[in-house]
């Protein structure tokens, strides 16, 4: 290993994030090269001194007492009532009953969402060129038409990044918006704790009054189509993660139809 390679890996080495083989190579280089060993020693001393000086603050004792005594006597069921979770629950509740065809428009949208499912397009937090973030709550650059959309749905400060992550453990993987028949689609995709993905899209669409949620297959993936109660908008969920699909079902307390 050359000096520049060792230096490049030094932080990772010290953070314990290098694969074993690379770790050994860095160690070997530090044993042989006094200059790099000097840098390593300096870095080690700096980290140690920082931990010593700044890493030892403790919470004031009254804080612990106050924090724990302020807890309610029982934990809630632990699932904050996010509108999307409630929507998903409603989907499954109704799924168990009747499967009535929703308007064709939603299928077309579902197909567009399924096409994008799995794409990796960062927005907002990542400063990527695709700046059309969907989170009016956390991103100042949300285009007015998207902002208006959330305003109309009574969630002017909704933040998909935070609220979904907190409720589900999903990690934000991508977001975009695109026009669908002249109306914006707000789309996000999430990595699930089990390594799969869930996509969600929301669009204003004139739903027939009889439109009800249903399950469909688009591109081989299960898709949930759900007119929202206002009859003016609809959600599309795309899953490639069966545990999550089942988790949604469990959430609703309804058995999922056997996929086989």
């Amino acid at each position, binding site marked *: 290993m050359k000096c520049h390679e060792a230096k*490049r890996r030094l*932080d*990772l080495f010290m*953070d*314990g*994030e290098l694969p074993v083989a690379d770790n050994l190579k860095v160690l070997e280089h530090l044993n042989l090269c006094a200059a790099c060993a*000097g*840098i390593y*020693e*300096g*870095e*080690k*001393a*700096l*980290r140690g*001194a*920082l*931990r010593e*000086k*700044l*890493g030892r*603050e*403790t*919470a*004031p004792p009254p*804080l*612990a007492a*106050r*924090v*724990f005594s*302020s*807890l*309610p*006597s*029982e*934990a*809630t*069921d*632990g*699932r*904050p009532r996010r509108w999307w979770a409630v929507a998903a629950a409603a989907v499954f509740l109704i799924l168990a009953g009747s499967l009535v065809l929703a308007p064709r428009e939603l299928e077309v949208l579902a197909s567009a969402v399924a096409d994008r499912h799995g794409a990796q397009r*960062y927005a*907002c*937090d*990542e*400063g*990527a*060129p695709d700046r059309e973030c969907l989170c009016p*709550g*956390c991103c100042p650059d949300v285009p007015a038409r998207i902002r208006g959309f959330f305003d109309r749905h009574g969630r002017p*400060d909704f*933040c998909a*990044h*935070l609220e979904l992550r*907190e*409720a589900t*453990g999903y*990690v*934000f993987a991508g977001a975009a918006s695109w026009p669908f028949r002249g109306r914006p689609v707000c789309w996000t995709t999430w990595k699930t*704790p089990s390594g799969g993905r869930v996509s969600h899209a929301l669009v204003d669409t004139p739903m027939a009054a009889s439109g009800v949620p249903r399950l469909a297959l688009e591109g081989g993936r299960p898709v949930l189509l759900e007119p929202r109660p206002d009859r003016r908008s609809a959600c599309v969920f795309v899953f490639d993660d069966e545990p999550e699909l089942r988790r949604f079902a469990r959430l609703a307390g309804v058995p999922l139809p056997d996929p086989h």
Partner: protein
Amino acid sequence: MDPRSEFEALAGPHLDGLYRTALRMAGQAASAEDLVQETVLRAFGSFGSFERGSNFKAWIFTILTNRYINDFRRKGRGPAPADFTDAEPAAAEEPARLSAEDVERLSERLGDEAARALARMAPEFRLVFLLSTFEGMSYKEIAAAAGIPIGTVMSRLFRARRILREELAEFARASGLLRGGSAS
């Protein structure tokens, strides 16, 4: 064990770390205490959805991060999110380094100067730095807590360390604590 005792047993050991992080992020003891209190309350409220056996520390720090962003960034009290795409210099120039002797000489002032440098740092950088340096969290845990990809954790950490080293070296030079040229 009832959920409340179980929660207290899990959360108790992390109060110091939560407070330390909150203090450096919020800047004031009173805000830090509020932030920790709100975090613990929120965590207890969501405790039913915490998967037993998974990483409690990463989970509760995620909630702290969310609370911080909610309180500071969303209410416009913190700086706007920076655009990091062009933040990396094209040529990887050699960053400033302090030798072990430099650190020793700085020792008296190092804590104060580092605290000042951290307070000036963009919160996005500061957060990953705090979680890594003081809370010993892995890149993966930080990624989960901050809601960013691992690659972003690495680049923010790299930048944060670089800023800190440069500021400390600059302070040392200006105050004559370093021998000429020992911090390059």
